């Protein structure tokens, strides 16, 4: 049979290979162009090789090209292997007189053959340690000697080729799936070969049979030799269909396994013999990030790579990027994790380094990698003046964004269980023990929508502001969710017996809030996120362009004022993203406090009827928003009206809000909304209107306290600014101006917000002057705020207790409150001393 093969292929070449091969190829190509890139749907190995840039895309090249490229890559590997895997027993160049003073087993020279040999042996030992524990559940393949040998050689060669990285644990887990898909491909090939044996053997027979007379002039001797075989194939020839009639997939397999195309056997795209070569090429491409892809090797590198702005190791930077994306998508979860001190790299290091290999079963992992490899690898075009855009290198390509988006969607998958823990260790445990039975499709779908968000120009370029602003609105929105942890932490965990009156108060309030949320039929976060998203979306549609926003739509003036301030700031100064983000986070946290205190007072106003408070707040919220819409929303702008309306419905938890907004009823659709590009302005607007809605209602109840409070915060921030230095005072004034205008607008809550915002940005100006100093100062300021808040709430409580006659155990509580207040005041004094020293 072999002879026939050879003979016929010769004949084909002799005739005109193109004439025969082309039509087949074209049919294959046209098929593949239909389903664009999934041309090797069932040949994952080939698909990945295409995605990783080892093979050219089939649509733009012929099988012959594929074969040539394949053969080249294999040749390179073989050459490398010959060069790097040294055997000291065999003199390399055949020269029998190597310099024995250098090339002997005890040589001290590291470049000697033996020196290299010993180093390799050491490396091999390390690699083997990991390999022996690789995928025990698929042990019958991965633990077989053949596979282990291949894996070992590939890893060894890669590490020798890239001494700057060396071998790091985890590399083997990146490689193993690659080898596995090749193995699966080859198995599939042999399956197909068995099934369609005729076509593998008869492809040329059939052709040669038709050209019967030509054959006689051609290599007659060989023909005689193969006469016997040929007789057998005569029978077959009758039922030979042309290759075109075959299933296109089988057709591809036949083409890819044809041993007689270009480069001969070396060019067989699917070849068991060259699995090692192919796996090495894939691994190399994956690690080095060919064609702009994310270079996995960077994740193993302990030092920052060139081009990173943060000066952090790439994996740490990517982890930070991941948290940044999380903070944009779900700030409450983000702040929860940050509060618990769960650093992203604790879990992201493992996730990223092995590209989620540890978190999913091999089958699922292959699906995930399908997506990751298939992602667009081209770097995004960035504007020349865009200096913050590349802060997170991982966001610079869609692939990197997809990786981080996938990680974020994994975190979001665990959202509820993460939020329910108050313990960093348990949080980490949950993150590192990812549930096995998951809806992968959903996860990937979510990751894709998040990817679009991560790639959105506003996130990757002006993301800090946007994220910060969004933080604000989010913290307002999900306030009821973050309240309990805020009010009770840091000193009392949630599950402890309440020892003070106001803590219990908060618990009851929170319960009421939860009930309220529960009554709206959905879990707390999703619909809320939904409407913010929605609002943001609608706002971004109309108001993303600054001038129409200012002129046309009757949104309030403050956002535009603030935005101008913001833009000035961002234009003048290349703001450091991280610090700014931190600042924003901090501010949002403080706003939580503010709201909390406000609610304490609100509560007092309604005479300690806690279970009613939530309801009360809803009602006042409705009233507030209604009033708001008359106050702020221009009738001609349906936008803010809708906004209020939505907010309204959300607040009052009316079940029929579906009539108002369809998307509220479809959390899935809401996720889609996140894909839309977001600019920072709408966020501010959202924030503001949200604020107003909320706070006007509240200020109806307790206007006086509000004023007092806002005044206090303003004073505090002024105090902080005066410490920051001269440069910031100007900006601070600007912020105060904003405050004034906001005051004029008549909303107390926005006074607080804008003053806080303003000081936030002014403090970020200070950051540029001295970031470190500012960071510590701001931390101090933050803790001061906390203490002030403690004192305030304690005093508040005292007042309540004095005022209400039906309070029991008054004396004890008052005494306790005073003690707390005293300690807090002491702390405060210490801190202010520190500040003044600085």
């Amino acid at each position, binding site marked *: 049979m072999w002879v026939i093969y050879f003979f016929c292929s010769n004949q084909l070449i002799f005739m005109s290979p193109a004439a025969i091969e082309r039509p087949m190829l074209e049919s294959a190509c046209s098929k593949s162009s239909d389903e664009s890139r999934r041309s090797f749907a069932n040949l994952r190995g080939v698909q990945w090789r295409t995605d990783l840039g080892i093979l050219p895309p089939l649509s733009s090249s012929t099988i012959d090209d594929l074969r040539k490229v394949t053969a080249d890559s294999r040749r390179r590997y073989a050459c490398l292997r010959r060069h790097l895997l040294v055997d000291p*027993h065999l003199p390399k160049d055949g020269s029998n007189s190597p310099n*024995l003073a250098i090339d002997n087993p005890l040589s*001290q020279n590291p470049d000697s053959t033996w020196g290299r040999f010993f180093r390799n042996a050491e490396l091999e030992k390390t690699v083997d340690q990991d390999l022996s524990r690789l995928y025990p559940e698929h042990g019958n393949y991965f633990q077989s000697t053949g596979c282990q040998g291949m894996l070992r050689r590939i890893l060894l060669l890669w590490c020798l080729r890239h001494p700057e990285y060396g071998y790091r644990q985890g590399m083997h887990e990146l490689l193993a799936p690659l080898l596995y898909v090749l193995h699966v491909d080859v198995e599939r090939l042999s399956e197909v070969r068995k099934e369609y044996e005729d076509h593998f053997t008869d492809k040329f027979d059939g052709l040669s049979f038709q050209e019967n007379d030509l054959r006689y002039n051609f290599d007659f001797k060989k023909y005689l030799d193969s006469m016997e075989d040929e007789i057998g194939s005569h029978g077959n020839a009758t039922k030979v269909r042309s290759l075109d009639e075959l299933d296109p997939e089988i057709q591809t397999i036949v083409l890819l396994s044809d041993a007689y195309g270009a480069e001969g056997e070396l060019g067989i795209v699917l070849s068991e013999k060259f699995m090692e070569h192919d796996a090495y090429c894939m691994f190399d491409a994956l690690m080095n990030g060919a064609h702009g892809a994310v270079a996995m090797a960077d994740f193993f590198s302990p030092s920052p790579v060139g081009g990173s702005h943060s000066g952090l190791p790439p994996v740490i930077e990517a982890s930070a990027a991941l948290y940044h994306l999380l903070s944009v998508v779900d700030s409450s979860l983000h702040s929860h994790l940050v509060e618990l001190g769960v650093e992203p790299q604790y879990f992201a290091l493992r996730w990223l380094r092995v590209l989620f290999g540890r978190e999913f079963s091999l089958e699922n992992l292959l699906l995930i990698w399908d997506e990751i490899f298939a992602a667009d690898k081209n770097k995004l075009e960035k504007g020349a003046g865009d200096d913050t855009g590349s802060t997170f290198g991982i966001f610079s390509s869609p692939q990197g964004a997809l990786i981080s988006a996938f990680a974020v969607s994994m975190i979001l998958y665990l959202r509820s269980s993460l939020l329910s823990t108050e313990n960093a260790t348990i949080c980490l445990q949950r993150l590192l023990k990812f549930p096995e039975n998951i809806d992968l499709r959903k996860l990937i779908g979510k990751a894709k929508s998040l990817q679009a968000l991560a790639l959105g120009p506003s996130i990757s370029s002006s993301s800090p502001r946007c994220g910060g602003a969004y933080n604000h609105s989010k913290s307002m929105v999900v306030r009821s969710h973050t309240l309990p942890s805020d009010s009770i932490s840091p000193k009392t965990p949630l599950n402890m017996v309440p020892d003070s009156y106001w803590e219990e108060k908060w618990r009851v309030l929170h319960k009421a809030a939860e009930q309220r949320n529960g009554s709206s039929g959905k879990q707390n976060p999703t619909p809320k996120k939904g409407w913010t998203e929605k609002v943001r979306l609608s706002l971004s549609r109309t108001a993303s362009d600054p001038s129409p926003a200012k002129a046309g739509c009757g949104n309030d003036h403050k956002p535009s004022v603030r935005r101008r301030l913001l833009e000035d700031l961002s234009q003048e100064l290349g703001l450091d993203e991280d610090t700014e983000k931190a600042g924003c986070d901090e501010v949002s946290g403080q706003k939580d406090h503010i709201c909390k205190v406000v609610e304490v007072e609100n509560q007092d106003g309604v005479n300690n009827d806690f279970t009613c408070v939530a309801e009360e707040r809803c009602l006042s919220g409705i009233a507030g928003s209604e009033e708001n819409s008359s106050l702020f929303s221009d009738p001609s702008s349906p936008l803010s009206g809708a906004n209020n309306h939505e907010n309204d419905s959300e607040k009052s938890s009316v079940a029929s809000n579906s009539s108002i907004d369809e998307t509220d009823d479809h959390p899935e659709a809401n996720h889609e909304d996140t894909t839309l590009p977001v600019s920072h302005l709408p966020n501010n607007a959202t924030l503001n209107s949200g604020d107003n809605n909320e706070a006007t209602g509240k200020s109806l109840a307790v206007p006086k306290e509000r004023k007092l409070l806002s005044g206090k915060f303003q004073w505090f921030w002024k105090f902080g600014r005066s410490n920051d230095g001269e440069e910031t005072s100007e900006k601070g004034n600007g912020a105060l101006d904003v405050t004034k205008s906001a005051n004029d607008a008549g909303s107390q809550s926005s006074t607080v917000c804008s003053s806080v915002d303003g000081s936030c940005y002014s403090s970020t100006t200070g950051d540029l002057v001295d970031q470190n100093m500012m960071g510590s100062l701001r931390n101090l300021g933050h803790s001061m705020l906390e203490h002030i808040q403690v004192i305030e709430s304690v005093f508040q409580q005292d007042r309540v207790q004095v005022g209400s006659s039906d309070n029991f155990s008054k004396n004890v509580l008052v005494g306790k409150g005073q003690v707390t207040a005293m300690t807090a005041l002491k702390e405060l004094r210490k801190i202010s001393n520190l500040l003044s020293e600085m």
Partner: protein
Amino acid sequence: MVLVLAIGDLHIPHRAADLPPKFKSMLVPGKIQHIICTGNLCIKEVHDYLKSLCPDLHITRGEYDEDSRYPETKTLTIGQFKLGICHGHQVIPWGDLDSLAMLQRQLDVDILIAGHTHQFKAYKHEGGVVINPGSATGAYSSFTYDVNPSFVLMDIDGLRVVVYVYELIDGEVKVDKIDFKKTATTRS
């Protein structure tokens, strides 16, 4: 692939203070899988030093060894080779190839390692090999004061043995290499 160090006749502290520093710097742990020592160390400290290079240490007793527990001869199998060790002062005439070949037949080994003469020698004899690693410290012998420090490193790989001879001549380490191939048929 196995690296076997053959060393002997150190005569520390009687005839030499220590190994030459150049040798000491070459002999590092982690490379050598077995040490074969023909004896005359003579003190326990040397034994400990050798043990630190490689824990798999095989020693026969020389006439000056303090430790009387060392055996007179020892055989071991490494890879496909059977090795015999003997100090050599028992074999008379000292260093005589025929006498050593007799011992080799007696022990039924492929490679016999014997010392005592303080002269490096390697013979291929009747399908076997007889190696004298010399004195690692260059201690004087009963024959001569003119002794170059030397030891032998054998690289045993399958049916092939590469003998590296390390000799310190005029303060320089000279390395020589001798190849031996065992024909598979000689083994029963």
